[in-house]
């Protein structure tokens, strides 16, 4: 099977799993325990924390709070920092941010959604025009998970802080971490990441927090993670995350260049009479979103699965709704929205897979046309 749904989740990295196995065998102790075993686990866990921080050149500048997933990290950022006035975000956010911001309405905070461009990115001016002296938080996704558009969050954060220095800036970096070269400038206060998009396991995420920023916990209890996130740490998941990230960051640059070539190779091999491109050329090299205009993406997805190609339709987290909220916000009509397919890659993606996938996409779409027209 050719697996091209890596933006939904990746296959866990075998080596990372093996290296981390010690946390399920001899090093199973609770990291909060006061005896030697607990201390040993805690020490290793903190070393991994440092290693993860180092990947973003954030050691000494940021803390990393381990969470259960990217969604939890996003929620903690929004509900901790969006407590008054208004919160500015975009129409292109993942549901983890979008729904949390909508919930703010029930808590007396006004969410403001900046429109997105055709490719899913947001313009600095669109954000700035919504920011005022009452804006407590701005949250902008780093890489749009449906189109792959990359927002220049460093520039956006700087502009936001220039307009209102008291505004907290958060970015959902789930589709960027380990894929796009990035080191947060001091204007970025919070940055959410997830392990299972880069070879880690589901159930592990993290929130980078600028040192000095006061955050309130989202989960209360035994005071783990400096009181910011209670609950016994998922040491095995954290270890897999750290080992997978270590591997991923090593090849980040070369992966980026190679996958960009593959992405273009795939698009140019697709039948131009059937597919239109929705992701921007300057977007993430890890994903290509197209539309088989007038066809039903969901049906194509199942046909392709049966033929050995696994692709996504829009955001897997919102697939119960017919049209993707984000793609609708990009301004496409029903016929384009119906046919959205997202191919997303990993470092393991090969040139042969790209060629075979292109052939399968073309032949399957033609078959769909023949059978339904």
């Amino acid at each position: 099977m050719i697996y091209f749904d890596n933006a939904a989740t990746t296959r866990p990295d075998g080596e990372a799993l093996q290296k981390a196995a010690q946390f399920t065998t001899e090093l199973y102790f609770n990291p909060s325990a006061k005896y030697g075993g607990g201390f040993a686990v805690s020490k290793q866990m903190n070393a991994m924390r440092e290693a993860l921080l180092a990947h973003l050149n954030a050691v000494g500048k940021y803390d990393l709070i381990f969470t259960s997933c990217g969604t939890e990290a996003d929620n903690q950022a929004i509900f901790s920092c969006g407590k008054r006035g208004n919160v500015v975000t975009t129409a292109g956010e993942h549901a983890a941010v979008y729904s949390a911001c909508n919930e703010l309405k029930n808590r007396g905070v006004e969410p403001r959604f900046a429109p997105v461009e055709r490719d899913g990115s947001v313009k600095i001016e669109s954000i700035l025009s919504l920011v005022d002296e009452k804006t407590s938080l701005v949250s902008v996704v780093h890489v749009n998970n449906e189109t792959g558009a990359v927002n220049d969050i460093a520039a956006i954060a700087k502009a936001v802080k220039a307009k209102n220095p008291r505004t907290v800036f958060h970015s959902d970096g789930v589709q960027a971490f380990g894929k796009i070269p990035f080191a947060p400038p001091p204007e970025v206060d919070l940055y959410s990441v997830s392990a299972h998009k880069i070879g880690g396991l589901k159930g592990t995420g993290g929130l980078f927090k600028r040192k000095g920023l006061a955050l309130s916990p989202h989960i209360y209890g035994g005071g783990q993670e400096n009181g910011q996130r209670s609950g016994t740490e998922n040491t095995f998941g954290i270890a897999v995350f750290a080992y997978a990230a270590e591997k991923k960051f090593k090849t980040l640059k070369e992966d980026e260049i190679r996958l960009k070539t593959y992405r273009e190779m795939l698009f140019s091999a697709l039948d131009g009479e059937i597919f239109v491109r929705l992701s921007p050329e300057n977007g993430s090299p890890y994903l290509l979103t197209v539309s088989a205009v007038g066809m039903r993406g969901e049906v194509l997805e199942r046909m392709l699965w049966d033929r050995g190609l696994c692709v996504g339709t829009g955001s897997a987290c919102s697939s119960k709704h017919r049209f993707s909220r984000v793609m609708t916000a990009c301004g496409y009509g029903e016929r384009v929205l119906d046919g959205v397919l997202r191919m997303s890659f990993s470092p393991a993606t090969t040139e042969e897979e790209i060629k075979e996938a292109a052939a399968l996409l073309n032949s399957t779409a033609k078959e769909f046309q023949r059978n339904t027209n």
Partner: protein
Amino acid sequence: MEKVIIIRYAEIHLKGKNRGYFERIFSNNLEKALKGIRHEIHRTSGRYLIADFDEERTDEIMLRVSKVFGVHSYSLGLLTENDEDSIFEAAKRVAPQSGTFKVETHRGDKHYPLTSMEISARIGGRLLAYDYELKVDVHTPAHTVYVDIREGGRALIFGTFVDGLHGMPVSTAGRGLLLISGGIDSPVAGYMMAKRGMTVELLHFHSYPYTNEAAKEKVVTLSKLLSDYTLVTKLTTVSVTHIQEEIHKNCAAELNVTLLRRFMFRIAERIALREGAGCLVTGESLGQVASQTLEGLTSSNAVVRLPVLRPLIGFDKEDIVAIAKKIGTFETSTLPYEDCCTVFLPDFPAIRPKLSFIEEEEKKLDIESLVEEALSSREVIRF
């Protein structure tokens, strides 16, 4: 003294010389319904007793009995010797702590030395003397203690009658094949036929990949819910994907649904005959959608010889919904998975398709090979 569940049956007493046959099936059905829970079923005249059962699962047994057709009413009670002291001991346990009550006696054993009135008076009197909080009210008591004197020196004492489902025991009225979709209506239609004693086999048509696995899984869930009543634990599925594609490519768009339904009926009849079913059952209700007009129904009937039973034909949607809610299928039926793909839906389906036009359009298709091909996609799911 022993805890028992008393089951009284409905309608079977009407069946004269066939009564033994009906009772055997009814008893088998009870056994099937209680499968997996320790219990014994005893038949006494006019009643069944569930005895020696796993008392921790009493509620579950009562729930399962509540779904067996042919049950007129049932009660949780005590089985005891029929001497006055034993009856009183049992009555003490059934009687309320306080409030008004009466004792009502029924004598199944007419040789018992006391009359019903005498038994009620004596047991009532002893209960009053035993517990001063109780008061007798023979007209509108808050509680009734029922004493049922049975043959063989036994008596049943209980406090409530729970109304059963009534109807006829399933598998006493032939076998039918229900066309089950993921919607609200078809499970209700199956329930209605099972209520009259029919064994309701299940057939589901899907059009994967135009419909998804979740839609099929939903039908399996519905089938399981329905099996509490029908005791049938098997679902046959058939793919009509290629048929839909061929109709779409070759025939007039407004006849899409009409033609597809004719194929479904043809396939269903073949499967019915193989499974020994004597009729098809559908959840159609007159005029509910374009294919359920009189002309639509006629066009489907025209391709089969087996009778097609449509127990919901005169029901309004809200009547059907009420039953679906009662039998517990409504929630599953309304899950948002498409059971037919909108890719093939015409803008305006024909409301009154003429048979001659339908047959003309159908000539464009190789009916026999399409039916055979669909039959070869047949899968059987047991649950």
